[in-house]
């Protein structure tokens, strides 16, 4: 077991706490860089979606996990980023200009949404962000001179300084990886800075934070702006990956999916964003497998266990009809959300930490370490 002996205050805020981090994250990065040459094109494309979702997840963790401001409107920020890219590209503006421009515009919109957030809290904030997302969706559908309305909009291949980056090529994969690593570093560095500590203070107690001289208004707006800007960047990548965008792609359901990313991953650390994104994106291939492979597998298993061929055939029929039922995806999503909130509120990353701690402390691990405190005195109306 490793024991990190701290001799310096700066050790508390080091990005890489000890030598082991170099190894584990170095290997992870090397695998990520080697991945396009190892996996098939389908998996590579799924990984690009994982990266895009993870960028949004990081953005949401900054806002929800660190600052404690809930948002169900992030699909709208993604849409603003995507449409900025689409519109500016059609006007002949190069990628290196419209990529940061999308981030700045989305960040500015995010700051504008942040202002009402100064007065709202809890459920009222959630509603306000939902209302904002609806309004953005409707504007996208109606502002036809810019967005082409409900017909949608084609987004051409990225042209980076004369080099085309096709949406299913290796270069696009590396671009997304680069943006993801960049946003993770941004989030981690933010946490080490006074700004990040102010965010966390606001999350833990607004009253205490204010008493310590933290400018609530400024930091809340900053948090919204940073989160929105990151989501806007993800939106640019999303638009290019899809190569076609239309308003009905950016609905409330997408916002809920983004929130699921951080709930499943765990909202208290940046790892959670990546783990949650992997989980959410891989639900689709899993469902396909459920539809195609599992019935065959089940039937062959049943017949090898001595079931009659007709019985096995019938079993296969039933299983595939369950697997291809229309609303299965929604039901599974719903179940996943409920199960995680009931049984693993810290998400996948929390589970990882628990397993790690179990082995570190081997015979001494106790469940109560991670027990959450319940607070029953909680009328929001008097808070």
């Amino acid at each position, binding site marked *: 077991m490793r024991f990190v002996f701290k001799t310096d205050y700066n050790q508390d805020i080091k990005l890489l706490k000890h030598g082991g981090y170099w190894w584990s994250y170095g290997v992870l990065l090397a695998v990520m860089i080697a991945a396009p040459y190892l996996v098939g094109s389908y998996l590579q494309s799924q990984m690009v979606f994982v990266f895009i979702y993870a960028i949004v997840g990081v953005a949401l963790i900054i806002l*929800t996990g660190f600052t404690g401001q*809930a948002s169900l409107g992030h699909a709208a920020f993604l849409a603003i980023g995507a449409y900025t890219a689409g519109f500016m590209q059609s006007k002949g503006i190069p990628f290196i200009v419209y990529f940061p421009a999308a981030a700045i515009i989305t960040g500015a919109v995010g700051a504008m949404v942040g202002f*009402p957030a100064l*007065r*709202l*809290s*809890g*459920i*009222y904030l*959630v*509603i*306000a962000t*939902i*209302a*904002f997302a*609806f*309004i953005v969706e*409707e504007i996208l*559908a*109606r502002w036809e001179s810019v967005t082409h309305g409900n017909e949608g909009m084609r987004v051409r291949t990225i042209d980076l300084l004369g080099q085309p980056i096709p949406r299913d090529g290796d270069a696009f994969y590396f671009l997304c990886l680069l943006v993801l690593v960049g946003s993770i570093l941004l989030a981690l560095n933010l946490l080490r800075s006074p700004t990040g500590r102010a965010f966390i203070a606001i999350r833990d107690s607004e*009253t205490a934070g*204010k*008493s310590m001289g933290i400018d609530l208004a400024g930091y809340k707006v900053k948090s919204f702006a940073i989160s929105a800007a990151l989501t806007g960047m993800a939106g640019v990548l999303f638009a290019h990956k899809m190569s076609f965008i239309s308003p009905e792609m950016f609905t*409330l359901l997408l916002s*809920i999916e983004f*929130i*699921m990313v951080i*709930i499943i991953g765990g909202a208290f650390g940046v790892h959670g964003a990546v783990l949650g994104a992997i989980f959410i994106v891989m639900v689709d291939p899993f469902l396909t497998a459920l539809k195609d492979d599992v019935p065959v597998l089940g039937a062959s298993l049943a017949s090898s266990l001595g079931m009659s061929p007709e019985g096995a055939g019938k079993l296969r029929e039933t299983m595939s009809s369950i697997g291809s*039922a*229309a*609303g*299965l*995806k*929604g*039901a599974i*999503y*719903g*179940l*996943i*959300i*409920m199960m995680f*909130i*009931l049984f693993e*509120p810290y998400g996948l990353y929390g589970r990882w930490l628990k397993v790690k701690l179990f082995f570190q402390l081997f015979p001494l691990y106790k469940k109560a370490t991670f027990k*959450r405190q*319940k*607070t*029953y*005195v*909680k*009328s*929001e*109306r*008097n*808070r």
Partner: protein
Amino acid sequence: MLDFIQQLVSGIALGCVYGLIALGFVLIYKATEVVNFAQGDLMMLGGFFVFTFIGLVGLDYWLGFLFAVCGMAVFGMATERILIRPILGYPQFSIVMATIGLGYFLRSVAGMIWGTDDLKIETPFSTGVLKLGDLVIAHDKLSVIVATVILCVVLYAFFNYTRLGTAMRATSENMLAAYYMGIPVKRVVSLIWAISAAVAATAGVLLAPITFIHSNVGLALGLKAFPAAVLGGFGSIPGALIGGLIIGVIETLAGFYLPQGWKDVAPYVVLLIVLLVRPHGLFGPSMRKKV
């Protein structure tokens, strides 16, 4: 002018629909400070229950109505027991997410069981209109208005004048203190979910002739009822009705007088403006802790 009044009346009818669903939100919020995003889906489920009892089993309308409401009350209690009680006391946002998950789940499962077609039932209110001079109000809409008003009055009286209602208000104010005063908090929370699900079922049954029964009807209406509840200031029963009326009237008038597209956005624009001016809604308490 007649156009305007006719639009106003249909706006009020629509507003009562929203108000009826918003009532369910408000009830649960009032007693437990939990926001139930699955309220619209409970309503949808109530509609399917009544379809099963009337359309499939062949019961009388009123008997089917009663069965559906009772069935949903039991369902609401079960939901509270299984999903809400273990996480009560944790941050509000995780409870909100749990109910969103519940909504997802109910929608999909209802779609799997009852199919995705629009279903219809025969009710005593399906046909017929009430004529007041030149004004025309269909019976199905009238039934919604009347039911909403009755439910509002009954629930308002229940919360303000009965022992159980007082216990519920005490629970919402401070769970721990209510416990010390001998209020069985867990049972109170269970009951409030039962009542709320029953109200949702009532809404579902009354809406069946108007919107038909469909697995997505809850999501669409629920998302409109939400601003209604917020506008009224989440914890207030008359507020839910008035918020619903405001949203309904604005939506109908915007659809009639403003260019296309405003109909769906106008309620949300109004909501944002109201929240900016009064962060706790029109009838919510304006207390705010200052540092």
